C-alpha cells in the first residue's frame, strides 16, 4: 500500500519458539564486562533507555491526556499535563459527529472487503508459489521489490483514468479494487513463507493414506496454515484501514470518505475547542489497527527477522 510505515519484510517461517528467560540471560552475558566497567555504563544505559521511552511514549501519552481534557482545560494559560477529571465528553462528541461514524463505516467496509478478497485470491497462489518451483517465484519477488521503488504518483494517474472510465471513481468498490491489488503481492509473499514452513512430508503422507488432493489441502495444510493466514489477513486489514494516498485521490464525495480522509479534513478546521475531540477521534481510529497489530506483531517481527537475515 502507499503507506510505507507498515511494511515488514516478508515472513518466511511460521513458528518461532517463544523467548525464554535463559536466552535473555545468555545474550547479555555473551558480552562480558568487568564489574567496574559495568558500574559505570549501566546507569548511562538506563539514562539512554529512559530518553527513548520519553521520546517514543510522550506523544502517545499526550494524545491520550488531550482526549480527556475539557475545552476550558485545553485553553487554560497554565495547562496541567494530566486532565483534572476523566471525562468522556470528547469521545461522545466525536462519535456524535455523523460524518465520523459514516467514515468509520466506509473504512470498515473497504478494509474487510479488501481482506476477504486478498485472502481468497492469495491462498491458492501462495500455495503454488511455495510448492511449485517455477519462474513465478522470482517474478513475484521482483515485482514486490520493484513496486516499492516507483512513486505512487506514476501509478495513480493512469489508475485514476482507468477507474474513471469504468465509473469507479468516488466509489468504494474502486478503492477496494485498488487496495486489493496493492496489498496482494505483499500478502502473497507473506503467505507463501508460511506455506513453505509446513513440511511437504505431511502432505505426502496424507496422499499415501489415500486422501484426495482437496482433502489433503483442507484437512492437513489449512489447519497448519491458519495462524499464518490470520496474520496475513490482519496485516492486510491494517494496511487498508490506515491507507491515505489512494483514498485522497479516488474519493471526493464526503459521504464516501474513509476515516483517515475525514480526520485529515478535520485537522484543517481545527479550532482550539476541537483539539480534544480531534485527539479522541484519532485515538478511536487507531484502536482497530493497534489491537490487530498487537495480535500479530510477534509473527510479523519474527517473519521480518528471518527475511532480514536473508538480505
Amino acid at each position, binding site marked *: 500500500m502507499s*503507506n*510505507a*510505515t*507498515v*511494511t515488514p519484510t516478508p515472513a518466511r517461517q511460521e513458528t*518461532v*519458539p517463544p523467548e525464554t528467560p535463559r*536466552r535473555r540471560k545468555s545474550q547479555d552475558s*555473551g558480552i562480558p564486562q568487568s564489574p567496574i566497567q559495568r558500574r559505570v*555504563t549501566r546507569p548511562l*544505559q538506563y539514562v539512554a*533507555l529512559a530518553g*527513548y*521511552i520519553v521520546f*517514543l511514549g*510522550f*506523544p*502517545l501519552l*499526550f494524545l491520550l491526556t*488531550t482526549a480527556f481534557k475539557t475545552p476550558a482545560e485545553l485553553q487554560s494559560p497554565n495547562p496541567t499535563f494530566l486532565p483534572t477529571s476523566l471525562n468522556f465528553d470528547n469521545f461522545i462528541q466525536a462519535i456524535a459527529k455523523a460524518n465520523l461514524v459514516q467514515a468509520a463505516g466506509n473504512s470498515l467496509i473497504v478494509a474487510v472487503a479488501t481482506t476477504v478478497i486478498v485472502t481468497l485470491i*492469495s491462498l*491458492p*497462489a501462495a500455495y503454488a508459489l511455495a*510448492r*511449485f518451483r517455477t519462474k*513465478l517465484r522470482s517474478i513475484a519477488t521482483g*515485482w514486490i521489490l520493484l*513496486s*516499492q521503488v*516507483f*512513486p*505512487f*504518483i*506514476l*501509478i495513480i494517474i*493512469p*489508475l485514476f483514468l482507468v477507474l474513471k472510465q469504468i465509473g469507479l471513481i468516488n466509489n468504494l468498490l474502486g478503492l477496494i479494487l485498488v487496495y486489493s*491489488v496493492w496489498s*496482494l503481492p505483499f500478502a502473497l509473499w507473506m503467505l507463501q513463507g508460511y506455506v*513453505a*514452513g509446513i*513440511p511437504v512430508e505431511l*502432505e*505426502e503422507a496424507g496422499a499415501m493414506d489415500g486422501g484426495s*488432493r482437496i482433502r489433503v489441502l483442507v484437512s492437513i495444510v489449512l489447519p497448519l496454515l491458519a495462524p499464518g493466514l490470520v496474520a496475513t489477513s490482519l496485516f492486510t486489514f491494517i494496511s487498508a484501514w*490506515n491507507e*491515505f494516498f489512494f483514498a485522497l485521490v479516488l474519493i471526493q464525495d464526503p459521504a464516501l470518505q474513509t476515516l*483517515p480522509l475525514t480526520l*485529515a479534513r478535520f*485537522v484543517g478546521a481545527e479550532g482550539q475547542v476541537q483539539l480534544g475531540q*480531534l*485527539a479522541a477521534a*484519532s485515538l478511536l*481510529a*487507531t484502536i482497530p489497527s493497534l489491537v*490487530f*497489530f498487537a495480535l500479530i*506483531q510477534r509473527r510479523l517481527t519474527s517473519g521480518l*527477522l528471518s527475511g532480514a*537475515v536473508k538480505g
Partner: protein
Amino acid sequence: MTSTVSPATVAEASAPQKRRRSSGGSPVNGSRRDAWLLVLPALIPVVLFSVYPLVQGILLGFTDAKAGLGQVVSFNGVDNYTRLATNELFWNSFRIGLIWAFGVTILQFFASLGLALLLNLNLKMRWLARTLALVPWAMPPVIIAIMWRLMLNPTYGPINGGMRALGLPGDINWLGDFSTALPAVIVVGVWAGMPQTTITLLAGLQNVPSELHEAAAIDGASTWQRFWHVTLPALRPIIVAITTLDLIWNFNSFALVYVLTAGGPGGQTMLPMLFAYNEAFRYGNFGYAAAMGNVMVIVIAAFLFLYLRSQARSRQS
C-alpha cells in the same frame, strides 16, 4: 521479538532440499499447469491494475496529457523534461525531498541502532521501550501527523510549554516557521519510521554469535572494539537492506507531511511527492506530473545503485 532467528533460518535452509527430493515440480501429483491455474486469480488483477498502470504512467511522462474529458493526448518526447530542467520550484522541492529522505533515514538509523543495542541488553523496563517502539508501526500515518500537530502547536503544544517552563522562548511556530518546519517534520518522520528499523536491527543483533564476542573479549578487546570489529561487520547486510528500504520509503512518503504541513510554509516542506500530487490533481497536468515521477525514479535508482555498489565493494575488500 526477542526470539532468535536460528529456527527460521534452519527451516529455510532445509526447505529447498525437501522440495528437491520430491522432484518433478510438485509434492502431490500436481503439474506446472496447476501452478499457473492457482496463481492466475492473483496474476490477472495485479497485471491489470498495477503493472499496466505503472507502464502507462511511465509512458504518460512523455505526453502532454491533462485532466478533463475529451483531451487529445499526444507524445511530446522530452518536452516535459526540458521544461522540468528549468522549473526551479521542482528542483527546490527535489532538494527538500533529498534532505528529508537522507535526514530521516540517517537519523532513524542511528536512533534505531542505539535503541536496538539497549534492547539487546538485559535492562529493566526494556519491555516498555520495545512496546512503545512498535506502536507507530500500527498507527495510521494521518493520525501520527495529527498527534504531532498537537505536540507542536505553538500555543497549546507541550513542546513550547516545556520550553517556557525552562525559561526558553516558548512561542516557536514549529510547523509554520521557515527555519524550523523542515527539521520538525524530519523529527516526526524519524519517530514514525523507527519501529521497522529498530526491530530489524535488533533481530540482526540477536543473530550475532555470542562466541565471537567471547573470543574477542578473551583477546582483550574493549566494548567499543567489539562493537566495531564484531557486531558491526556481522550486522552489515541487515544495515544495508534496511537503510536502502528506508531511503526508498522516505523519498516516496506522502501522508505524513501532507497532513503535517501540506508542503508549507512557503514550500519549505514540499516533498517531490506532494509537488507532483499538486501538479496532477490540483492543476491537472497529468503528463507533466508523470514526468516528475519518472525523474524521481531515476534519481532514487541512481542513489541506490551508488550506495549498493559501494557496499558491495567494501565487502569484497
